[in-house]
C-alpha cells in the first residue's frame, strides 16, 4: 500500500530554475543515452537471432515454432520500445521462460495423457507409412544392377547413378535428384580403400529412388553396383490399407494407431493418436496397474510423512541435547553433524547403496559378520533402508532449524515458568514446543512437499526396487509417484509416454488438493498485498 508509481519525469518542473550543474546532472541521469543505446543493441540482437530462427523454422516447415517465435519477438519489441509499460519491461524475460518451460509443458502433459504416444507410437501416420515401407524391403527379383559411385558429402555418404545420360545424386535423407557436375565438387569420391574402411556405412545406406516410397530404395553391398529394393508391404492410399504381398494379409487403419489385421496382429511402428480417457481408464480399472498405482501412492505419502517425522524428531532431540550452555565442544559436534547435509544427496544414495549391498557391502560384511541381509532387495527392508538413508541426509537440516528456533525463544519465559514452579519437562511441553512448532511448521510442510517428489534418494538407492511381482508395469516396492512416472516413460524398452503423462496428471490433481487444503488452513493467499 505504498504510494502509486510516479512517472519518471514528474520531478522535473520546466518552469523551475536549476543551477547549470544541477541541470547537467539531471539531464545526464534522466535521459541516460547510454542505457537507451544498450537497450537498442540488446533488442536488435534478439531480433536478429529471432529472424534467423524464423527462417530456419520455415525452411524446415515447422510452422508452429516459426509463428510462436514471431509472436514472442513482436511482444519483446512492443514492450521495450513503447513508452511506459514499465512493469512489463521487468517481467517479460522471466515470463517467457516460465510460460514455455513451466506453464506450457504442464498443459502439454495434459494433452499427451490423452494420446498413446510411446514406443511404436511416436510419430504421425505419414511417417509410420514410409518407415513401414522402408523397413520390410527385399530385392526386386530379377531387377538390373545400377552402376553406382559413392561420394562423401557434408550430410554423410551419397550415391550417384546415371540415368538417361544425366547424373542423379541421393543420400539418406533425399531421394535421387539430378545434380550438375559443378556442385559435385562439394563431394569427394570414395576410393577403394575408403570403401573397405567404411563398409558398414556403405552397406547400410538406403537411398530412395523417388519421393514415392512405393518405388523402393537402392542399396549396394560393394559400393559399385546397387540394386533396387522394394517393400514386401504395399500401401493403398485410397483404401488406407497395407497389404503384405507375400501372405496377402490386409492391414487396416482401425483407429488404434497402427495398421491392424483382422486377426488382431499389428504392423509396427504405428503412429500416435488421441485415445481419449484410455490411459486414465487403464490406470484405474486394469487391475495390474491399479494395484501398483495404489500401493505407490500410499508409499509416497508414507515415505514423505515418515521422512519428515523421523528427521524432525531426531533433529529436535539433538537440538535439545546440545542446547545446554554448560556443554563444551558443542560447535565441533554441530559441524560434524552438518556434514551429511552438505554431501550431495544423489551421492549419498549411491554410497549407501554400496554399503547396504547384500553380498559385498560394508554393513553385511563387517557390521553383521557376513550375514546376507537383503537390505535393498526385500520389500520391507528396502523401505526401511530408504527411510534410514533419508534420515541420514535430512536430520542435520532439522537439527539446525530446531536449534535456531529453540534459541530464539526468550529465556525469560522458562525462567518465569520455573519461578511459578514448573518442572523442566512441563516447560518444554507446554511452553517451548508450541512456540517452536509455530515457527517450524511451514518448514515441515515444505519438507513434506520436497520429499513427496524426492526422486534422487529413491532412484539412487534402490531404483524403486525390488520389483512388484504382480504389477503389469515396471514398478517396485520403494517407487514413489515421480519415479513411477520416470520409469514408465524412460526406463526399459517399452516406453509409454501417454500412460506416464496420465500418472503425472493424477499427481497434479493430488498436489492441487493438498495445496488447496493447506492454503485454506494458512490463508497464505490473504497475506499478499
Amino acid at each position: 500500500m505504498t504510494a502509486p508509481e510516479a512517472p519518471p519525469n514528474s520531478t522535473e518542473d520546466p518552469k523551475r530554475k536549476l543551477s547549470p550543474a544541477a541541470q547537467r546532472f539531471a539531464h545526464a541521469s534522466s535521459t541516460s543515452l547510454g542505457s537507451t543505446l544498450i537497450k537498442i543493441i540488446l533488442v536488435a540482437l534478439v531480433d536478429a537471432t529471432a529472424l534467423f530462427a524464423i527462417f530456419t523454422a520455415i525452411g524446415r516447415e515447422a510452422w508452429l515454432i516459426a509463428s510462436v517465435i514471431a509472436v514472442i519477438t513482436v511482444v519483446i519489441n512492443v514492450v521495450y520500445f513503447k513508452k511506459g509499460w514499465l512493469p512489463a519491461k521487468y517481467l517479460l524475460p522471466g515470463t517467457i521462460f516460465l510460460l514455455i518451460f513451466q506453464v506450457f509443458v504442464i498443459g502439454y502433459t495434459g494433452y499427451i495423457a490423452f494420446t498413446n504416444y510411446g514406443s511404436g507410437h511416436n510419430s504421425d501416420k505419414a511417417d509410420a507409412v514410409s518407415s513401414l515401407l522402408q523397413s520390410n524391403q527385399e530385392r526386386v527379383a530379377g531387377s538390373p544392377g545400377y552402376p553406382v559411385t559413392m561420394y562423401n558429402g557434408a550430410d554423410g555418404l551419397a550415391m550417384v547413378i546415371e540415368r538417361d545420360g544425366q547424373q542423379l545424386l541421393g543420400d539418406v535423407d533425399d531421394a535421387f535428384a539430378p545434380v550438375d557436375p559443378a556442385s559435385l565438387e562439394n563431394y569427394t569420391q570414395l576410393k577403394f580403400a575408403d570403401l573397405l574402411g567404411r563398409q558398414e556405412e556403405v552397406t547400410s545406406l538406403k537411398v530412395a529412388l523417388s519421393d514415392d516410397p512405393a518405388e523402393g530404395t537402392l542399396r549396394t553391398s560393394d559400393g559399385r553396383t546397387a540394386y533396387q529394393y522394394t517393400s514386401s508391404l504395399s500401401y493403398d492410399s485410397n483404401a488406407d490399407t497395407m497389404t503384405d504381398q507375400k501372405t496377402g494379409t490386409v492391414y487396416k487403419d482401425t483407429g488404434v494407431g497402427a495398421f491392424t489385421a483382422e486377426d488382431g496382429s499389428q504392423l509396427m511402428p504405428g503412429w500416435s493418436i488421441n485415445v481419449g480417457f484410455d490411459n486414465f481408464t487403464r490406470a484405474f480399472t486394469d487391475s495390474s496397474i491399479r494395484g501398483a498405482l495404489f500401493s505407490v501412492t500410499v508409499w509416497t505419502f508414507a515415505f514423505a510423512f515418515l521422512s519428515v517425522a523421523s528427521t524432525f524428531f531426531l533433529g529436535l532431540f539433538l537440538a535439545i541435547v546440545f542446547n545446554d550452555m554448560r556443554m563444551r565442544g558443542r560447535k565441533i559436534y554441530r559441524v560434524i553433524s552438518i556434514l551429511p547435509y552438505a554431501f550431495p544427496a544423489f551421492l549419498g544414495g549411491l554410497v549407501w547403496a554400496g554399503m547396504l549391498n547384500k553380498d559385498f557391502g560394508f554393513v553385511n560384511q563387517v557390521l553383521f559378520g557376513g550375514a546376507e541381509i537383503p537390505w535393498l532387495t526385500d520389500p520391507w527392508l528396502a523401505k526401511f533402508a530408504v527411510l534410514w538413508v533419508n534420515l541420514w541426509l535430512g536430520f542435520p537440516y532439522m537439527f539446525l532449524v530446531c536449534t535456531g528456533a529453540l534459541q530464539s525463544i526468550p529465556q525469560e519465559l522458562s525462567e518465569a515458568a520455573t519461578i511459578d514452579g514448573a518442572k523442566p519437562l512441563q516447560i518444554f511441553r507446554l511452553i517451548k514446543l508450541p512456540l517452536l512448532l509455530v515457527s517450524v511448521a511451514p518448514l515441515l510442510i515444505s519438507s513434506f512437499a520436497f520429499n513427496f517428489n524426492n526422486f534422487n534418494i529413491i532412484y539412487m538407492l534402490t531404483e524403486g526396487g525390488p520389483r512388484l511381482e504382480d504389477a503389469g508395469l515396471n514398478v517396485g516396492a520403494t517407487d514413489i509417484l515421480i519415479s513411477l512416472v520416470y520409469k514408465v516413460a524412460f526406463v526399459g524398452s517399452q516406453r509409454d509416454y501417454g500412460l506416464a503423462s496420465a500418472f503425472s496428471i493424477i499427481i497434479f490433481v493430488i498436489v492441487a488438493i493438498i495445496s488447496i487444503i493447506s492454503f485454506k488452513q494458512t490463508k497464505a493467499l490473504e497475506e499478499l498485498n
Partner: protein
Amino acid sequence: MSADMTSTPTFRSIPKPARRTFGKWFATTGWRHLIGVALCIYAAFPLLYVLSASLNPEGTLLSSNGFFSTIGLQSYIDLFHNEQRPYAAWFANTLFIGLTTAVASVFLGALAAYSFSRMRFTGRRVGLVSLLVVQIFPQLLAVVAIFILLTSLGDVFPALGIDNQIALIMVYLGGALGVNTYLMYGFFNTVPVEIDEAAKIDGASHARIFFTMILRLVAPILAVVGLLSFISSTSDFVLASVVLVSPEKQTLAVGLYSYVSEEFTSNWSVFAAGAVLAALPVMALFLFLQKYIVGGLTAGAGK
C-alpha cells in the same frame, strides 16, 4: 533429570565445576557427549567410508570394507583416464550448467521481484497469485512433455534440442522462476521504499535504481537464491538424464549414476574417487558459508 535433585534446596549456590564428581558431570553434560559421539559416528562414518574406498587401490566393493587398510591413488588416476566415462568433462559440465543457471535465474527472478515489489499495476495481484499457484506444481512431473517438446525443437534448432546443455539450462530457468521470484519478493519488500523515492527525486532512472541500489541492498537473498538454484540444478538427475544423452555432455549426477548402475561392484573404488572429488567443493563451500546458509535455510527449505 537426576533423582537426587529433589533432596537439595533449589536456591543452592552453583557448584564449582572443578569439584564435580564424575557422576555429577555425567548427569549434567557427560551423557550429552555420549550422544554427541554416537551422532558423529552416524553422520561421518559413511563419508569416511567413501574416502577410504576411494583410496583403496584394489577397486572392488568387497575390498573397500578394509577401512583404510590399503592406501593408494590409483583410482583417482583411473578416474581421469576412462574414455567412455569422461569425468573431467562431467565436472566442467556440472559447473557450467550450475553456474549459468544460478546467475541467470537470480537475474530473472530479481527483475520480476523488483517490479512486483516496487510498482503498482493492473494485474499485479493476479500475477503474484498465479506465480504462487504455478510453483505448486513441480516441473519435474512434466518431464515427458519437456522431453517431447525438446525433441521437436531439436529437429529445427539442434542447439535447443535433446542432448544440448543450453536447452537444459532453459528448462531449469523456467522451472525455478516461480519459487525464486517469491523468495526475492519477500526480501525486496523489507527494503524501505523511501530509498527508491529519494533516488527518484534525485533524478535516478528506474534502471539505475534497480542495478546500482536495489541489487546491492538485497545481496543476501541473491546469494541464497543463487546457491539454492546452483545446488538444485547440479544435483538434478531426472531432467539431466532425459535431456543429456551422450557421455561427454552429461553432468556428474548422471555420469556417476552410470558408473554404479553398470558393473556396480568392480568399479566401486573409482566411483568413490569421483564422489569424493564431486563432494569436496560443495562441502567446503557449505562449511565456509555455514552461518549464512543456516539463516537462508529457513527461507527456502530443501532436503
